[in-house]
């Protein structure tokens, strides 16, 4: 964020395009590096882990060092191994939820915005009701109905987020539909599907992409919250949320276990959000026009 804005400030008015391109990549690069590092941890954890998940040879609550990069937890398991597994669960949770939320949410939102009269009102009321169930609580209901697995958590988070995405999409589409160029397109005989693809989606999707990236972060956070409450992926899958919950009691005596998962979580979410910001600056036609 800071490097991007500093560069932007340093660029004189009317500077050539090259300056703008450098500014965009600064945000993108920082974000990609952060998110990429976590993604790398996640991918590596599929093939290699420093210790087996149930290895307790390191002794309980050992400090960092001595063959254990971050030390061990209260059962003697290697913390770095758990952190790596956690990164895989976090990435899976984020991707899965956003995929569900985007598919259902955008379809519903566009439908609601285009629908007439009572249909729009009913759909909006339905969305309001869905939003009335906060992500975590909907997730708790679904987890109670099925079982505490990563799949239940992702399904629940994705469904809950689809309502938020739908509501945002509906508002954005409605705003676009009040614009004169839509009226012009209609008068000139453009069909509604063409208007959606040619005018509406290009105008709303930069905002949607930013929001979906936020939803990715929120999904990762929600999964961590569910695991913190004991409703996420069951043991021995060390989700970051579960690790933090287990480390809460020993925060002051063994801070590594209570800090490392949290720091990585923050890095992943910050990274994805920075990528979104970088993408937005590159993709948003309005931003491009007003800055050139």
């Amino acid at each position, binding site marked *: 964020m*800071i490097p991007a804005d500093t560069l932007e400030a340093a660029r004189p008015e009317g500077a050539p395009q090259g300056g703008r391109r450098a500014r965009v990549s600064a945000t993108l690069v920082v974000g990609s590096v952060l998110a990429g590092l976590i993604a790398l941890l996640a991918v590596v954890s599929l093939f290699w882990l420093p210790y087996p998940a149930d290895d307790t040879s390191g002794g309980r609550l050992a400090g960092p060092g001595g063959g254990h990069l971050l030390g061990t937890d209260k059962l003697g398991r290697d913390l770095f191994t758990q952190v790596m597994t956690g990164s895989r669960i976090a990435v899976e949770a984020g991707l899965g939820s956003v995929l569900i939320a985007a598919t259902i949410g955008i379809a519903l939102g566009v439908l609601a915005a285009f629908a007439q009269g009572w249909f729009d009102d009913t759909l909006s009321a339905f969305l*309001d*009701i869905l939003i009335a169930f906060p*992500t975590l609580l909907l997730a708790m*209901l679904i987890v109670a109905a099925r079982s505490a697995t990563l799949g239940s958590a992702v399904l629940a988070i994705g469904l809950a987020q689809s309502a938020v995405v739908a*509501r945002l999409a509906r508002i954005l589409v409605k705003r676009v539909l009040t614009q004169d160029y839509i009226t012009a397109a209609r008068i000139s005989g453009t069909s509604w599907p063409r208007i959606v693809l040619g005018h509406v989606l290009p105008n709303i999707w930069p905002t949607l992409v930013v929001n979906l990236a936020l939803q990715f972060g929120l999904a990762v956070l929600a999964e961590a919250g569910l695991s*913190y409450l004991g409703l996420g992926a069951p043991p021995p899958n060390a989700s970051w949320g579960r690790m933090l919950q287990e480390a809460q009691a020993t925060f002051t005596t063994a801070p590594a276990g209570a800090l490392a998962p949290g720091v990585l*979580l923050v890095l992943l979410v910050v990274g994805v959000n920075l990528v979104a910001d970088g993408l937005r600056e590159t993709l948003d036609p309005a931003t491009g026009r007003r800055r050139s």
Partner: protein
Amino acid sequence: MARYLLRRLVFLVVSLALASVVLFVLLRMLPGDPANALTAVGASPEQIAAARHAIGSDKPLPEQFTHWLGQLASGDLGTSFVSSLPVGPEVASRLNVTVPLTLAAFVLAVLVAVPAGFVAAHKRHTWYGALLSAVSQLGIAVPVFWLGMILIAVFALNAGWLPAGGFPQDGWSEPGDAIRSLVLPVVTIALVMSASLIRYVRSATLDVLDSDYLRTARALGSSFGRAMWRHGLRNASVPVISVLGIELASTLLGAVVVESVYALPGLGSMLATGIAQHDYPVIQGVLFVSTLGVLLIGFAADLLQRIIDPRLRGRLSGGAR
């Protein structure tokens, strides 16, 4: 406007009715008979049948539903299967914790986020504008329970200034203790909430700052402050109010994690317990009350947006499409 108000009110009632049907059906789809909560493991079929009869879960669903609606109409939220206590008073006592917690956090978050978001947009070329953006960027990435853990470790365990959790047994009859036990939870929620709000306020302000109407107003000799006040504020507040409504609504029940970190007897933790115990009346009661709250918040947010943005009025008073 009066016509819109009427329509919106009708839909508020219809939504609530729809919501209660959905709620009722959803809960009946959960596996496990509620009678299981009443009987010991290994109970005979007769005992289970007797328990089902006692709580009415052996009756046909429509009959159960009309029974519930009748109760609701007389202001009765039912009786807990597990504790045999009425749900209504329990919800009320939980609201004594959750509503102050939510509202205080919300107000604090708005007080922080609106000026901070405006500065982050307007002064984005200065170091403090960039710093504000960076801090909010960081803030939306912090898990709320982790922030809670850190605040407890710093301010309760190390400094010993505030309690690490819990709520006084006598509730608000000890106002000092009650407030002291809510300070850290309120700050926890407000920090996380304001981080995301700053982003929305910033982006709404940026849209306004780049707009043609603001440039026109300035070109016509309006001062920056006056142009922002007359044109900018109205336009920027429409999307922000929409987000505010969602944030407030989701905090109302979404505080369950914070309630868990700080061991607060709030609405969220009541629901969590109810779900774990398959206690239908508790789940139904809590969700009905909070759905009502969320719908009212949405109603207020919509109304506020119509008042601020006349362009939206024509579209929803029918026919203008």
